[in-house]
């Protein structure tokens, strides 16, 4: 059973398969007629007329003979794809049948051409117009009947080598005769214009009789056959079997003559005379040797009378042995076959030129020269031959991305072009690199897109490696003006108020009880202290906030000193001990407290929460000495104090809610004394929860200058909070005004710009 070898994947398929069951590629060419409305301009012109195209039956009914030939030769065509062992007996029947068909077609074409000359479209015959690029013309011959060597895909050659298949002479003959049989019935009015229709003008009205070109085609067909016999050394992977070609080797001498003519083909074409090998002129069914053919010269039918041009001289040359040939002529190598793919485009054109001449075609005569040329030099692997491209399913697609409207991917490049539902490949992978450098075997073969990406990446990396000076955005002049304006307003107004204003009177402001509940509670606790009660005061605020805390805590500390309490200072911050000393010196000089007598500075308590916990457990052990190095626990302020519970009050001065939380968590217990706090205004929201619990974890607190002012009002003794009250209020008023005016102006400006659809900008 014959099998079809897929040209894409190289795997065998049943003969009746149209599509490869392994890769999905089409095994047989499309033969359906295209839609008539398909514009011809959209179709790709074949590179050369190597693709035998079956004309549209609707256009030329006279070409029905092609269908007949196709039916008869269908098995042979499939045999081209699947090389089979060469039959020992080369059938002369095929040759004679072929000649008979030529004879029959010759008569038919005379009639057809006479009709076509009377006015077909554009003065071109239908078969020619079909090849001129009608996109809808189906491809009738998928196999490499006449592929040009540069267009030969590499995979196609490799397939033959890998499979170890050897094209039999019968196959090769079919490869050559197949297209000829299809072209012969369609001779144009100007046969020389067939290979290059786009460069040839329309046929002249006064053309020679059509019989001569037809005879030339027929002679070329025989010439092709002759050249097929005198094959040079076949390319790798293709071997011949000379034992099977006895009948073909016998008429070889005239082919040697044609080898010589291949070199002179260009000059001699106009001067050629009708020559034909004797074996071809004598071939008849049933004959097995050239001697038999010679006996039947008179039996040549009229249609093959053009073969009579084969003169006696030619016959002599045919009879010459290789040794008698000129020295420059290479000996005939009948055991070699011609690689049909190893043909250049020029020779293809010559081939078609020769088809319409009486002389033998040049592709037969130049077979040896062609074989001497290395095929690898002219093969461009990335290019597909025209016949392969013609095999593609015709897909109307305008989307360059390769996706159809249904988002179905259709390959646009490579041998799988036109096939849908495949994995998309990089389009430029199939394209050859531009420069020779990229084609070097030692360098990477990259596509243009990949090279563009690489260059882009290189630029990005190079840009990153460059050291660029980062220029800070300069503030706009209006911003600078605004900042300086705010600063000047605050400085001038507050200075004026401090210098010329003065303090406030007690009870000037009415305070709500619920707002200053913390201050009131702390005031009550301090008011309950007795003389010489030990009070632990923690200075845990930063020096930057000394201004606020001095004004806030001065009234509270003053109240403690007024009550005669012994104060012990401790701090969990390194600057706390010095800050405590500074506070006493700057705010409580009037009480004349002496270190070691009324107060004691215990210094710095390291360890954060652990230090506080340790201090709460055993204060004497943790801080045995005072800040000045004296024995702290023997001094009057700490006399009788052995634990944290012996203090009458714990007062924490901090601006940090975390520090306050640590004191509450690590020191404050059910048995500890009440804990009061003096905090910054910013920490008040986080201190409130400790105060508003039941029982209170923070017994009372004073927050900010406003709280200090309230506490001083409660104590009845104006202190620093009252002294700073007017500047403080003035500063708040100015601050609120600046924020309000500036914010309102910016808000209105932003809304205005939004309405106008603009962005950015600055104060203007």
């Amino acid at each position, binding site marked *: 059973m014959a099998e079809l070898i897929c040209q894409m994947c190289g795997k065998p398929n049943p003969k009746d398969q149209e599509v490869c069951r392994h890769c999905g590629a089409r095994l047989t060419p499309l033969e359906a007629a295209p839609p008539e409305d398909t514009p011809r301009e959209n179709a790709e012109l074949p590179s050369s007329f190597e693709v035998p195209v079956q004309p549209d039956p609707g256009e030329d009914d006279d070409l029905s003979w092609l269908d007949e030939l196709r039916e008869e030769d269908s098995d042979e065509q499939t045999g081209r794809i699947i090389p089979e062992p060469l039959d020992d007996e080369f059938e002369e029947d095929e040759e004679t049948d072929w000649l008979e068909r030529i004879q029959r077609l010759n008569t038919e074409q005379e009639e057809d051409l006479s009709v076509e000359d009377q006015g077909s479209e554009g003065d071109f015959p239908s078969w020619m117009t079909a090849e001129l690029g009608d996109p809808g013309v189906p491809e009738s011959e998928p196999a490499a009947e006449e592929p040009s060597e540069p267009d030969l895909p590499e995979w196609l050659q490799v397939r033959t080598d890998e499979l170890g298949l050897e094209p039999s002479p019968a196959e090769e003959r079919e490869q050559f005769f197949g297209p000829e049989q299809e072209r012969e019935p369609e001779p144009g009015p100007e046969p020389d214009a067939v290979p290059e229709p786009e460069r040839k003008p329309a046929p002249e009205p006064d053309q020679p009789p059509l019989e001569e070109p037809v005879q030339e085609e027929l002679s070329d067909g025989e010439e092709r056959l002759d050249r097929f016999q005198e094959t040079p050394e076949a390319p790798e992977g293709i071997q011949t079997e000379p034992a099977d070609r006895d009948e073909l080797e016998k008429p070889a001498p005239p082919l040697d003559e044609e080898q010589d003519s291949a070199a002179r083909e260009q000059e001699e074409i106009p001067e050629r005379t009708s020559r034909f090998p004797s074996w071809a002129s004598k071939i008849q069914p049933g004959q097995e040797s050239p001697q038999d053919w010679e006996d039947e010269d008179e039996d040549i039918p009229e249609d093959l009378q053009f073969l009579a041009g084969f003169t006696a001289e030619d016959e002599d040359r045919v009879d010459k042995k290789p040794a008698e040939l000129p020295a420059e002529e290479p000996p005939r190598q009948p055991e070699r076959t011609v690689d049909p793919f190893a043909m250049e485009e020029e020779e293809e054109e010559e081939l078609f030129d020769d088809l319409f001449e009486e002389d033998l075609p040049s592709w037969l005569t130049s077979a040896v020269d062609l074989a001497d040329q290395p095929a690898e030099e002219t093969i461009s692997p990335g290019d597909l031959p025209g016949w392969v491209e013609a095999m593609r399913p015709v897909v109307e697609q305008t989307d360059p991305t390769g996706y159809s409207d249904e988002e179905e991917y259709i390959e646009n490049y490579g041998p799988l072009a036109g096939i849908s539902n495949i994995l998309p490949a990089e389009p430029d992978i199939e394209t050859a690199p531009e420069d020779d450098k990229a084609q070097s075997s030692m360098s990477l073969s990259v596509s243009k897109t990949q090279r563009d990406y690489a260059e882009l990446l290189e630029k990005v990396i190079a840009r990153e490696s460059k050291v660029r000076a980062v220029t800070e955005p300069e503030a706009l002049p209006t911003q600078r003006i*605004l900042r300086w304006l*705010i*600063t000047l307003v*605050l400085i001038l107004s507050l200075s004026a108020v401090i210098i010329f204003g003065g303090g406030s009177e007690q009870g*000037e*402001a*009415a*305070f*709500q009880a*619920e*707002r200053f509940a913390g201050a009131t509670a702390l005031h009550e606790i301090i008011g309950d202290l007795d003389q010489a009660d030990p009070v632990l005061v923690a200075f845990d605020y930063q*020096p*930057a*906030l*000394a*201004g606020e805390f001095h004004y806030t805590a001065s009234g509270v500390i003053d109240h403690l000193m007024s009550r005669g309490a012994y104060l012990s200072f401790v701090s969990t911050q390194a*600057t706390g001990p*010095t800050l405590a*000393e*500074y506070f006493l010196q700057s705010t409580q000089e009037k009480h004349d407290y002496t*270190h070691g007598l009324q107060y004691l500075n215990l210094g710095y308590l*390291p*360890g*954060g929460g*652990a*230090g506080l*916990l*340790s201090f709460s*457990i*055993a204060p004497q*052990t*943790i801080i045995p000495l005072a*800040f*000045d*190095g004296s024995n702290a626990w023997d001094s009057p302020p700490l006399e009788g104090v052995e634990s944290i519970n012996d203090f009458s009050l714990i007062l924490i001065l901090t601006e940090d809610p975390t520090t306050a*939380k640590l004191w509450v968590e690590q020191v404050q217990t059910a048995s500890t004394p009440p804990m009061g706090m003096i905090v910054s205004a910013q920490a*008040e*929201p*986080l201190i*409130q*929860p400790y105060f*508003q619990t039941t029982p209170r974890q923070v017994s009372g607190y004073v927050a*900010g200058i406003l709280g200090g002012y309230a506490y001083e009002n409660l104590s009845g003794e104006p202190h620093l909070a009252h002294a700073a*009250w007017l500047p*403080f*209020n003035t500063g*708040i*008023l100015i*601050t*609120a005004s*600046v*924020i309000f*005016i*500036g*914010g*309102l102006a*910016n*808000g209105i400006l*932003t809304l205005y710009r*939004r309405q106008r659809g603009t962005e950015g900008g600055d104060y203007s």
Partner: protein
Amino acid sequence: MNLKFRALISTAIVIGVGVIVLAGYFLPAITAVRFILLRAGLVLAAVALLVGIINLVGIHLRKLSSDQSNSGYSLILVIALTITLIVGAADMFQTYMFGKPNFQMIKWVFTYIHLPIETSLMAVTAVSLIYAAAYILRERLNVFSIIFFFVIILVLLTSFSISSNLLPILQSARNWIVGVPALAGGRGLLIGVALGSIATGLRILTGIDRPYGG
């Protein structure tokens, strides 16, 4: 757990100390052990402060030697730290050895150098905050920005010494803001911090987190 030998020891120490200190809150019998551990931690914290100072000096000395930009500030820092250290050491020597008034020189440095600098920085921060508050509606004009803007104005105005009788509505609004949303927010923050502390403590006690390495 893929622990090395050193990491195993350090992890065991941390977990053991943590468990003992934590249990000391509930078991009075181990209070003494807990206190010993706490004292050791206290000393280590003080030493860590000293180590931190040494590291700071080393970093700025390297900046000086490498001739980097802004190395002048490093020079100022090293000089100031050296001077303060010498003054403090001398002050401590005088106080402890000769019984002179405690730390007079270091008090001078603090009163006339340290405190004014930090207070000035806070004053500059106040001006910057005022400018930022005025500019907030320029950067982003949305509902939250507008609310934030007017809350600032409200709190500032209610801190003003205008009698609450003149602006009773504003005062009530301020009390509501401080007593309800601010208090709720503060409590939420504290609860969140507490939960995070518990989770972190448990992870350290179980050895999941090993900030000490290993």
